[in-house]
């Protein structure tokens, strides 16, 4: 099905091409602040409700209104829903990005555009098909008021799209009814706009060969973003103090925590079983978490890279004075302000060793919203058990995009682990209390909470202290404590969530990744297997790394390390924290700000596994490549 170089006004060609069912990608280009986000969310939810594995990536500007924004949707029956940078269809609703959007579609693909105005000749590509629907004109004719016309145009393109790719109209209606159950007028307008787009497209064009078909899902799923899941984890873990300073893309975690607490932790008379502190900056937010953790509450903050920078001094204090706290880092593109609305894994090194002096921190790496929930609960247990800051390292892609993720479940047998806390009963059994004494050899000393007993009183300080908690400038007294901290982290190493390892037969190469890289890596590994290169996968879930991680690295001749940052930060961490030979680790890097795709991974891996291939062009490629199928 090729285009004729002119906008298609008649029914699209119906030459015999087998339909591609539930396996394609499209992108919607709009202007932010015009209501398109709701329409795009609707599209995602409808496809998801059709049972089809789907992902939606919001590529949005750091702006409130008027700048270009894109929404990328990928459907894949095999569950490969990592970002797909090769688009079969573009819904081009923003004239200011027409030329960029027209060039983004694959050869043989389609461009759905608003033909209320003629398309400039310079935008015509001979190898694609143009589908013009006069959306603005229809909406101007059928709706009154500028705002309604703008909003309804979005729903009209949903209607057109539904007709073209087979989105289930009944599910769309059902979804709209749920959204506007209390707004009858809005519901009617939405129905009307939907029908306008749908009917026009039906009348003028044949359905495209890329089609959606309802399927029975292979399990129980929900559609949720990682920040909501993480906030839910905080509530379920029993966190009572949330302190933060607003920052993209971490804000929605705290917004969700606040909403969830209103729902689950507020009495009818307004009494609350939580405190939500909006701090003056990230320094204060970290200080509040540490103050509350020291006092014995489960406390956390949610931030991004710039916030981690500001929190670093306090993080060092919490490490050295041994105070629990959970720090969510929803990574965005750095350095500096960077691109606040784009994703990256650029904070790995700054988190692992945050703050001056010798420090090392526990970090957990969720790879999906589902894991954001479970690992955030675990983070609180680990923080209290090891009396140290624990980081949950997510990113914008997981945090802010809705993901199809397994339904969350709660183990009612779960009880929180408060760690070694001496209360009056325990204090009664000892002669004197010494804060930093390692009695049982695991590197963890018991702490006491203020206000409980005079016998347990001690002085907490970031200045040099000995095992009794006394100020010291004594070389042995100082060193004994910092050496025990190493021991404590060694104890942690063995009990942190282990790596997820998937082995294939006859492999020589392994691939290591973490966080949101998982889906793209799995897809790449499947493609590599088809091409005769079986590769083992190891997805890391925690730092410091366990012995299992070390063993995996030793067992493979070549290990690809996938990083969503320029400098191969995960690779550096592996070199630093395991016994692996540096030369064995091949770096595969993607850091342009978009979520990782299998293309990026293959571009880095194939030149090594197929050295005579034409693709032998370096590893750190930020632009999507066109790979052979």
């Amino acid at each position, binding site marked *: 099905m090729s285009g004729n170089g002119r906008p298609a006004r008649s029914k699209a060609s119906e030459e015999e091409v087998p339909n591609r069912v539930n396996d394609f990608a499209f992108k919607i280009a709009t202007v932010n602040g015009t209501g398109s986000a709701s329409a795009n969310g609707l599209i995602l939810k409808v496809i998801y409700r059709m049972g089809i594995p789907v992902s939606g990536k919001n590529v949005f500007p750091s702006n409130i209104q008027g700048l270009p924004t894109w929404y990328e949707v990928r459907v894949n029956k095999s569950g490969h829903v990592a970002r797909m940078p090769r688009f079969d269809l573009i819904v081009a609703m923003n004239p200011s990005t027409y030329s960029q959007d027209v060039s983004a579609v694959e050869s043989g693909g389609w461009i759905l555009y608003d033909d209320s105005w003629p398309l400039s000749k310079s935008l015509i590509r001979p190898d694609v098909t143009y589908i013009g629907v006069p959306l603005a004109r229809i909406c101007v004719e059928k709706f009154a008021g500028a705002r309604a016309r703008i909003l309804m145009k979005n729903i009209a393109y949903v209607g057109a799209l539904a007709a073209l790719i087979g989105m289930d109209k009944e599910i769309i209606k059902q979804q709209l009814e749920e959204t506007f159950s209390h707004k009858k007028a809005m519901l009617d307008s939405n129905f009307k706009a939907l029908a306008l787009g749908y009917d026009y497209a039906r009348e003028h064009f044949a359905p495209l060969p890329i089609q959606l078909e309802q399927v029975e899902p292979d399990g129980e799923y929900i559609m949720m973003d990682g920040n909501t899941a993480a906030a839910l984890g905080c509530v379920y873990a029993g966190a009572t103090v949330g302190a933060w300073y607003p920052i993209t893309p971490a804000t929605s975690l705290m917004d969700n925590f606040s909403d969830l607490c209103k729902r689950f932790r507020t009495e009818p008379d307004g009494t609350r079983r939580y*405190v939500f502190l909006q701090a003056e900056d990230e320094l204060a937010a970290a200080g509040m978490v*540490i103050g509350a953790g*020291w006092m014995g509450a489960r406390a956390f903050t949610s931030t991004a890279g710039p916030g981690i920078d500001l929190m670093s001094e306090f993080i060092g204090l919490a490490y050295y004075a041994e105070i629990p706290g959970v720090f969510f880092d929803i990574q965005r593109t750095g350095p500096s302000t960077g691109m606040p609305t784009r994703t990256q894994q650029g904070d790995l090194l700054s988190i692992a060793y945050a703050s001056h002096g010798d420090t090392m921190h526990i970090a957990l790496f969720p790879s999906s919203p589902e894991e954001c929930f479970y690992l955030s609960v675990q983070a609180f247990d680990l923080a209290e058990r090891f009396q140290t800051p624990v980081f949950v390292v997510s990113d914008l892609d997981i945090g802010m995009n809705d993901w199809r993720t397994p339904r969350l479940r709660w183990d009612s047998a779960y009880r929180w682990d408060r760690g070694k806390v001496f209360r009056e009963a325990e204090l009664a059994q000892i002669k004197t209390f010494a804060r930093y004494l390692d009695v049982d050899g695991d590197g963890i000393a018991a702490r006491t909470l203020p206000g409980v007993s005079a016998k347990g009183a001690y002085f*907490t300080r970031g200045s040099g202290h000995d095992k009794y908690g006394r100020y010291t400038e004594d070389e042995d007294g100082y060193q004994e404590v910092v050496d025990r901290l190493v021991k404590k982290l060694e104890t942690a190493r063995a009990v942190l969530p282990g790596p997820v390892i998937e082995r294939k037969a006859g492999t020589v190469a392994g691939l290591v990744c973490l966080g949101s890289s998982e889906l793209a890596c799995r897809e790449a590994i499947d493609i590599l297997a088809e091409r005769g290169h079986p590769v083992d996968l190891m997805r890391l879930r925690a730092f410091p790394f366990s012995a299992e991680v070390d063993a995996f690295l030793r067992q493979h001749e070549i290990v690809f390390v996938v990083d969503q940052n320029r400098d191969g930060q995960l690779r550096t961490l592996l070199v630093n924290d395991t016994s692996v030979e540096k030369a064995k680790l091949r770096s595969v890097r993607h850091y342009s700000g978009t979520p990782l795709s299998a293309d990026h991974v293959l571009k880095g891996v194939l030149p090594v596994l197929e050295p005579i291939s034409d693709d032998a062009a370096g590893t750190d490629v930020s632009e999507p490549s066109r790979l052979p199928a």
Partner: protein
Amino acid sequence: MSSIAKPKILTQKTERNALGLTRLDYEGGMSTLCAGCGHDSITAAIVQAFFEMALPPHRAVKLSGIGCSSKTTAYFVSQAHGFNAVHGRMPAVAAGANAAHKDLTYIGVSGDGDSLSIGLGQLCHAIRRNVHMLYVLENNGVYGLTKGQFSASSDRGSKSKYGVPNQEGPIDSISLALALGCSFVARSFSGDKEQLVPLVMAGLKHRGFAFIDVLSPCVTFNDHEGSTKSYTFIRKSRHEVTAAGFVPIQPEIAATYAPGSVQSVTMHDGTTMYLRKVAEGYDPTNRAGALGYLREHADRGEVPTGLLYINENDPDLHERERTAATPLRDLPFESLCPGGEALDRMMDEYL
């Protein structure tokens, strides 16, 4: 910071408070500050106030930042938990601790560097947040631990130990606190224990953020001719105006004062405080008046001391946030975790 254990020797005559405790029970480690440091007098006043109020030592929480003043939390109430935070960031730690447990007695000690330079923002926001605590700013106009640099409270023209006059204008913590709507604002002098002890007591009783700026000369770096923070200069310029003595005197004692010269204030815990007015017509419940008075006297080179402003009706962090009666850190897990059924119902909203 560094401290030396103090010998505890009791004599038969030792006075005991309502809890049967002695002053020694409210002391801490031996001070390592310079002999004659104003801060040690403030420590003594805090010990005295705690003793007189018969506060259970283990129910107190002592917080500080970094600097000479911040060392002093190790020198009083050793049976309370203490926390030396990072420089200028004690208010955030105090806010977090207080959020987690609303029923303990919080006392923060800071200095002019810690509060007015590196920690100025934190102080301002703690005031805004009205965290229930007593915040003592031990103000000596100089950086002691780093040996004699001017601080943000150094007056313009005040001379350093090396004879160099300060060129930059000062931040007046009292005007700042008043402008920010602090609900308890006082100034005192480390050399006037009679004034300071009742002020500390009142500050501890105050519901909300009680701020006391205590002029506290640095004998090593800022007690010379030409300094506006020396013992001599403060004694000369101090104008015990307003609510000079904020004294918890008994009603029968109050009756001995001239009519109109005693004002009573009901504290949040129900105690009545009697405020003996020295300056005629000064109303410590009038914020605008207090600001004007301060400005007027500052222009005359006078430093008004005493309780300058009080408002017992400003809701503190917990009242505003409507937190539960049980301190958050003591809430049982079952009251915090919504449980499996609730999660399952919620999941249906995300289908």
